[in-house]
């Protein structure tokens, strides 16, 4: 058993109690509508994620996958519709929602070029409002999970794109979120990196979390999928 697995046993997510009380979906998107410059992107989209599952959403470039994820993450607001994670509304209880949900945006942005791997994780642990002892434990676990221990003192601008992606994933999963939103997470990862991600996703699901994985059509992850959907004309349909 890895250290990452060991430490996971000791931590209880802040909303675990809520999870026990709130039956049903971990994430619920209801009739979400969003347009950009008058162009409808999402048109009454519904989605429900159950604990312990991975849902894959595919679709053409520009279909609205990233917009859906940004709304689910609480980054942007829908024009109509509602969303909640374990019954928590991101607009009313922002901080509580952010403790539950973690979002990996597509691309290679979101890192500080001149900070080391460890400094990134320390920084993110602190803005996640984790206490000191918990932070230390989670940082070591994240380094092990994504095999970053040897790179821990290396600055980001001296790392390869694949190594940076592993760090982005480690940051995203650092606080052990209940709900993981991944936008094209395999970007720049080699087979080994993809394997580490798969293992981490499976572990999160076995702990009662849920994962929403978005990637272009044809790039379905090699995981047991509860739902396989395609975003088409603003709504989700079975792939």
């Amino acid at each position, binding site marked *: 058993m890895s250290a990452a697995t060991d430490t996971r046993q000791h931590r209880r997510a802040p909303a675990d109690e809520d999870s026990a009380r709130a039956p049903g979906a971990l994430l619920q998107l209801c009739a979400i509508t*969003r347009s950009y410059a008058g162009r409808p992107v999402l048109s009454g989209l519904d989605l429900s994620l159950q604990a312990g599952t991975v849902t894959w959403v595919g679709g053409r470039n520009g279909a609205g996958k990233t917009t859906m994820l940004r709304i689910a993450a609480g980054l*942007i*607001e829908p024009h109509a519709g509602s969303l909640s994670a374990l019954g928590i509304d991101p607009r009313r209880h922002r901080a509580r929602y*952010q403790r539950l949900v973690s979002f990996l945006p597509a691309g290679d942005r979101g890192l500080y070029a*001149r900070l080391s791997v460890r400094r990134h994780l320390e*920084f993110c642990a*602190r*803005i996640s*409002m984790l206490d000191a002892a918990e932070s230390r434990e989670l940082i070591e676990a994240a380094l092990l999970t994504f095999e970053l221990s040897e790179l821990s003192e290396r600055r980001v601008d001296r790392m390869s794109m694949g190594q940076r992606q592993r760090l982005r994933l480690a940051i995203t999963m650092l606080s052990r979120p209940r709900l993981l939103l991944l936008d094209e997470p395999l970007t720049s990862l080699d087979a080994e990196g993809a394997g580490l991600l798969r293992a981490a996703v499976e572990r999160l699901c076995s702990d009662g979390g849920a994962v929403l994985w978005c990637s272009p059509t044809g790039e379905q992850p090699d995981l047991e999928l509860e739902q396989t959907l395609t975003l088409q004309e603003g709504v989700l349909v079975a792939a």
Partner: protein
Amino acid sequence: MSQIRAFNAVLRRDLTVYLTYRTRLVSQVLTSLFSLTLFYYVSRLVHLSGFATPDSYFAFVVVGIAMVGVLYSCFQIPELVRQELLAGTFERLLLSPFGAVRSILAMSLFPLIFSFLIAAITLALACVLFALHLDWSTAPLSIPAMALALLAFLPFGLLFAALTVLVKQGSVGTSWVIALLSILGGLYFPVALLPHWLRDLAALQPFGSATGLLRHLLVGSPTSEPALHAILKLSLFAAILVPLALAALSAAIRAGQRSGTIIEY
């Protein structure tokens, strides 16, 4: 406690990044040194009724030079927000339990504290190299006075940061605002030299009061207003404008989330 840890994390991050640029401090100290040298020799030419000797004008302008750095550091906040937007790290701050408003507030700490340090180095250089005489009986009081001044200046940076979140331009108007405040704040010459209507305008901002107070405490310059009046004015600016600026920042972020432009840069 976790809030303090988060503020500290942002401060530590900014210090770490700063220290990776090894020549930056040397460059900033050299800039101060060149400004001091320039104004030392300019002061030899100055014969104004308000200044008994060239040294008294030099003492006046040294505090002004130190305050210009503080002024710049306030208006650095919007540019820092823009850098976060460009790097995609703003999303991480926004989606953290700590939140974007507190993160921006925390982001302002390093430049403000650092400008305080550079101001102290500037004064030290002026003392050592140009024989500036500090009034040691009141100089220690300049530390709380500077802290109050920073609180009064902070909302200006935060308001421009709110504008940056909305329009994505960090430097919109900041350079002319700094230039205008340098004039109205009497950083390089007494406000008394300005036309009457500009003097009235100068009374509406806190930079002149802060600079006057610090000059009085550091080099014993006579003040144009009683020290207590300046302290009250700075306190009022801080008490009224800090909450207003934070509310404006919060509203700008919310507006960006509603319009969807929060992720644009």
